[in-house]
């Protein structure tokens, strides 16, 4: 599609500037979106993509600049205006109410609240028609709480289409999908733009950007860094634009496996609500290796992570550490046995927001190292934290400030320091770089590789297939609580892993090699 310049402009952002106190989130951002066009909005975490979309949506008011939709300037601070003008947004974190049905979620807020009643039959018929047209299969009567992640995303897209959206904004939509599901999503989007819809596609995955977009808009530090026609650029070019300078990721060589440190045999754990437990899972973590766990989120990663963290115990099966069967398994014993745990959610699980850095740094070791007979040794704790801050390059005013005030990257460095200082044998890294900028990502990856090189076994859980393929010596795929055989570095293409992620291959009776 090369006629974008001639097509009607549906959205025009002009000189958008937004400041939060001393921080400038967006500065002078301008671009146009045309009818039937897909723009990829590319940028690192913290580059200002989300703020920009929130301004477009009336959630924030821009300090300067204007948003024009179909030639009409949007009034500032009116959350409904963009929706009513035909902008639909699919958020990265789904905005669905689990206790409601699919159709209820879709019609929420469509009729005015003063309307006398809902019209379920009419709504469901319309939803079914849209499902058929755009290949978005989902049962309107199903409770959303029972849907898979892929189905939920379809509901989100249907929500926008139901409101006759002319512009669809997708925020990191493939983060939760298998490559195959992502391909299906692209097919839906191509269908949609053929009917005249325009799309803004927010992503940091370059291959997807190249595959689906017509134009790429790159944001860096809140400013528009570049605007390129997709067919006149390439991945390397975009990567450099996104980061500003050439940043080389740490190159990581394959290592030979050492002695097995942890092994799971036919381990089963109960399901946790909609999240599946482990289904007769076999896994071996060997010294000196990074074992990558790929899979769509919600397929048992949480159960495996909780198991290694000491939060749950196997319902059946064996769990051995250094060749001995595990007894009385709690977070405390896990730590004592030398397992370092980097939790998935550093804000909710990894740290206590209103505790200062010292109190957070000793969270796992206060009992064993910083107290005697129930009395705290704060002087020792504070000295330890100061060391940690220096060694792990945590940028902060000092050990006495609340951790809430640190950036995600610095918070993660403190957690890393906290667990690596114990010289762990096994490292569980659950989504260790989610939401970090490239500098911090490289730091974390480098630290994991270093730990491996000194003989630790690292289990890396990530939804980002690129990250898994870049770091892992061995890759397993998890799907509905079942584990694939281990694949050596470079033996699998993304599509092959994608097939496993979608659940193919498990039934073929493939040996569950460790």
């Amino acid at each position, binding site marked *: 599609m090369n006629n974008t310049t001639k097509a009607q402009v549906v959205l025009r952002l002009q000189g958008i500037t937004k400041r939060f106190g001393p921080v400038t989130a967006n500065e002078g951002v301008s671009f146009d979106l045309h009818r039937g066009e897909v723009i990829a909005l590319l940028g690192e975490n913290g580059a200002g993509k989300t703020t920009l979309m929130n301004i477009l949506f009336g959630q924030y008011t821009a300090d300067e600049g204007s948003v024009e939709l179909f030639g009409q300037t949007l009034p500032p601070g009116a959350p409904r205006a963009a929706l009513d003008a035909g902008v639909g947004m699919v958020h990265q974190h789904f905005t669905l109410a689990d206790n*409601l049905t699919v159709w209820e979620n879709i019609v929420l807020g469509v009729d005015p609240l003063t309307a006398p009643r809902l019209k379920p039959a009419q709504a469901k018929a319309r939803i079914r028609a849209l499902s058929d047209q755009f290949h978005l299969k989902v049962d309107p009567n199903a409770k959303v709480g029972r849907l898979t992640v892929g189905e939920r995303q379809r509901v989100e897209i249907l929500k926008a289409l139901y409101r006759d959206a002319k512009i669809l904004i997708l925020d990191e939509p493939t983060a939760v999908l298998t490559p195959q599901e992502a391909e299906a999503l692209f097919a839906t989007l191509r269908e949609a733009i053929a009917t005249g819809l325009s799309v803004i596609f927010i992503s940091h995955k370059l291959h997807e950007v190249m595959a689906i977009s017509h134009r790429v808009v790159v944001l860096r530090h809140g400013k528009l860094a570049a605007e390129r026609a997709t067919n006149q650029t390439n991945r390397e070019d975009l990567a450099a634009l996104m980061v500003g300078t050439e940043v080389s990721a740490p190159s990581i060589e394959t290592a030979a496996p050492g002695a097995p440190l942890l092994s799971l045999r036919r381990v089963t754990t109960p399901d946790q609500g909609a999240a599946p437990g482990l289904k007769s899972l076999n896994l071996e973590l060997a010294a000196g290796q990074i074992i990558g766990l790929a899979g769509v989120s919600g397929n048992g990663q949480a159960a495996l992570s909780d198991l290694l963290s000491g939060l749950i115990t196997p319902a059946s099966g064996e769990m051995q550490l250094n060749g001995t069967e595990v007894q009385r398994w709690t977070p405390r014993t896990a730590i004592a046995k030398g397992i370092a745990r980097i939790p998935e959610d550093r804000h909710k699980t990894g740290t206590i927001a209103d505790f200062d850095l010292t109190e957070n740094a000793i969270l796992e070791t206060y009992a064993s190292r910083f107290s005697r007979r129930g009395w705290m040794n704060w002087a020792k704790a504070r000295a330890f934290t100061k060391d940690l801050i220096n060694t792990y390059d945590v940028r902060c005013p000092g050990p006495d400030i609340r951790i809430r005030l640190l950036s995600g990257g610095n918070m993660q460095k403190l957690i890393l320091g906290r667990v690596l200082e114990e010289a762990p044998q096994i490292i569980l890294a659950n989504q260790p770089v989610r939401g970090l900028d490239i500098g911090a990502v490289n730091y974390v990856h480098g630290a994991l590789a270093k730990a491996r090189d000194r003989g630790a076994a690292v289990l890396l859980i990530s939804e980002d297939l690129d990250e898994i393929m870049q770091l892992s010596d061995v890759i397993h795929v998890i799907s509905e609580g079942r584990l694939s055989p281990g694949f050596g570095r470079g033996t699998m293409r993304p599509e092959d892993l994608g097939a496993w992620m979608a659940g193919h291959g498990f039934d073929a009776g493939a040996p569950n090699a460790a």
Partner: protein
Amino acid sequence: MDLFDILLSASFWAAAIRIASPLIFATLGELICERAGVLNLGIEGIMVAGAFAGWIAVWAGLPLWGGVAVAMLTGMMLGLVHSILSVPFGLSQHVVGIGLTLLATSLTFYTYRVVLPEVSSPPKITAFQPYEIPLLSDLPLVGPALFSQTPLTYAGFILAALTALVLYRTPLGLAVRAAGENPAAVAAQGLSVTAIRMGAVIVGSGFMAVGGAFLTLSAFDSFFFDMVNGRGWICIALVVFGAWKPGKAVMGAILFAAFDALQIRLQQTGIGAVVPYQVFLMLPYFLSILALVVMSRRAEIPAALMVPFNKGER
């Protein structure tokens, strides 16, 4: 009179429905608040204020329904205070609720002393009288039990039906239910979570106050300091017992009231001579705790209950 006779007597069931009525109003009010995501622990104080406001308004010359309206407005004012603190400011709903109960109760007692400084016993009003619904009240058992109540009791049942209708059949009700489950879903569809939650708390508090006013305008004909006596806390247990559904909550209130009516009657039987009366009076509270324990395994609690919503926060 043995248990069987009691359970088959119309007067027993009439008493049960009468005892259930204030609970029905207040439980519906609490249910609306909680469905929108706000735990309203101001309920006890709001019921005290409603009981007093309705009664004093009638004593001052307003008609009975005027008293009900005054009580409702009083409750809504207190609900406004609660909602401002708990919704846009997102303060701890535990602290705000307890604080509001203390405030509403002390304001009520203060006003009572200011308005009636000299009296030793509070004046009486002419309360709602039972109204026998033609034909229906002639039915055996259910006639005298259900259809010979005061108009305010009928209003309670109508309100329950209306609440269910609004919650499940209207866009407004859908928005309220969504606000209690995932406020971000409401905000993403261009609706104001703040407005929906505040509205729910204000209206719900109005219902609680009418529940209080039932005591002074229908069940009794005067106001006493300790007349609410923990009914508000019981209603919170009833909401849990009713799994946050209006129909079940009303059934729970009636079941609960039946036990209460039963213990009053049992006190007058042979058992009452042996067992101290305090044991009977404890029963309602024990039942409430039991209800909470029995229902604790159910996962029907609104997911965003007690979770403030601050847009732009991650």
